[in-house]
């Protein structure tokens, strides 16, 4: 399969993930969308790494995966704390930054 196919696939998954982030009401749901987006990026990286013979893409993917895991952990911890304080995880209700 040509490189373009993999990249298109990744772009599609990215768009779907973006849709999820924009439309989900639950905070955890938003995090899931973010996961999808990150996955798409990983596919991109590996595809480029494979088709150009450069190992850097794969290493970058490794790091990305590790960082994503850390981010999910901390993010969910925050969600739980928010839930403790405000008794809700609905994104519509978390508008303390409102101007």
């Amino acid at each position, binding site marked *: 399969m040509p490189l373009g196919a993999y990249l298109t696939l990744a772009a599609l998954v990215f768009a779907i993930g973006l849709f999820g982030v924009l439309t989900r009401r639950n905070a955890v749901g*938003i995090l899931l969308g973010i996961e999808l987006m990150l996955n798409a990026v990983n596919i991109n990286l590996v595809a480029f790494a494979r088709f150009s013979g450069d190992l850097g893409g794969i290493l970058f993917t490794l790091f990305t995966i590790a960082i994503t895991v850390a981010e999910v952990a901390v993010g969910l911890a925050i969600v739980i704390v928010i839930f403790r304080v405000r008794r809700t995880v609905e994104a519509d209700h978390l508008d303390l930054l409102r101007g």
Partner: protein
Amino acid sequence: MSMRAGSATVALVVLALPFASFLLLALVRPLRRSAVAAATVSITAMVAAVVAAFWLSWRATPLALLQSPSRTWSWIPADGGPMATVGVMVDGKSMAMCMLVTFVSLMVQLYSWAYLHDEPRRSLGRYYAYHSLFAFSMLGLVLAPTFLQMFVFWELVGLCSYLLIGYWYDRPAAARAAVKAFWITKLGDLGFVAGIVMLWAAAGTFDFWELFRLAHTNALPVAGMPLIMFLIYLGAVGKSAQFPLHVWLPDAMEGPTPVSALIHAATMVTAGVFLVNRAFPLFLLVPDVLTLIAWVGAFTALLAATMACVENDIKRVLAYSTVSQLGYMMAAAGAQAPDAGFAHLLTHGVFKALLFLGAGIVIHVFHTNDVFRMGGLRGQPWLWVPFVLATLALAGVPPLPGFFTKEAILGGVFEAHLMIPFVMLAVTAFLTAFYMFRVVFLAFFARGLGDSHAHHHVPPLMSGVCWTLAALSVATGVNLARQMLAGGHHEGAPAWLPAFSLGLAGAGIVLAWAMYQRGAIDPARVAAVLAPLDWAARRRYGIDAVFAALYRGALLGFSRAVGWVDRYVVDGLLNVFSAWTLRAGDRLRRLQTGLPQDYLYGVALGALLLFVLAQWRMK
């Protein structure tokens, strides 16, 4: 008259004394708050100034032919010599004026101590401070060697006039009168400063001596001179209350009577006449302007005399009389007889001041300015003798000085073949005698009002000053009489002139006696005969109304328009901008919903925008 010059140092001393007094009173508050101390400082300075002024004149030395009587120091530097200088010009005219100003100031300040005795202490201190400032300003004006310095002191004198007219500043009429005086003279001053600047542009110097030299050697460009000299004359029109800027002088009577005696009789109002006299070599270059000056002067004299005939307020009568006499002096200058006008200035200064101070005595006695409420003072000659002497001087009866100087003016005008002004001045002489004696008969000798039995008490200081001035007047008159008998007439004046002017004066006195003392002619019937004139004169010929309408209509209307523009256009513009900013801010604030998903929309849109931009670039 300018063949003698005095010492510049002594002139500076004369200037410095009242200035020092003013500084002391202005800066040292306790001194000013105590009226006694303030008066002492001021009067002492004035006495010293009188002595210095007399010394100046006594010790004057003859002047070499082309030597300048000025002593100047550089003030505003410029390439190739200073642009403006300050200093003193001590020639005959300025020495005479110094003596007049210092002496009359001293008399008035002494008189004021008794007249204003009931004033609060602090106000009196302020009064004497103003007097010192005025003396300094007036002396600076007469000693000025350049137009620029004269203008500076001119404005200072105007300021002092404002301060002193509005001395009782909590009286609305006084405040209004002070402002009116300021405005009207300012109109004239506009012309004055324009003229000075244009003259400087044409000649390159402000200095009088330099200008006279240039004029004498025909080195002055004559092209714009008529306009320039006319503009300079405008300053005199304002300050010396010539028609049509005479309206401020009667209203200026709101000030205390001693102030009227000093400023609006002897010194400040004569500044305009002094200006014309001082700049006479320049005026000689433009004979048309001189003719105009003569006509305006004569007309002013007649106009003011008619208005004085119908006035009941004694001070107003004297004010109109001053306007009238100033017209005489200007007419003399216009008729190219400036020395006659100057002589009249000096003599008039003394007896007019005396008239005002004498009027102050009757005002003090009767607590009113209305002549119809006065009278019955026949039995106290020490009260009315000085006043009557001054009135005779003003009417032009020998051997009092007014006769000689007035006759000299009439002679000068006649010689210059200005017939209509001559006639006007002659009629004015008749009217002057008439209305002044009307006042004398009504204020002093009228019967039936608390008659000669009542003994009115007048502070000796007041009557003492009046007697001093009366004695001076008589002495001057006798001196002039002796000069005339010894040196004879000056050539050219018609021989019938002295008799003619005496006859005019006599006729006026007789008429006034007949109407007001004897009751032989009923004043009401005379008024009925001259009804239109009477009506117009009582309304001051509507000139006041014109100025008021101009002020209210034009000036205030303009101010209102400007105010409207400022509020609605300038401010409005700013307000509109600020309102838009606030509203835009309000609307933009709603972007901040606080929901991260909405922010992500923004990020995504931004990314899209970048895509589009990059696509474009790639194309």
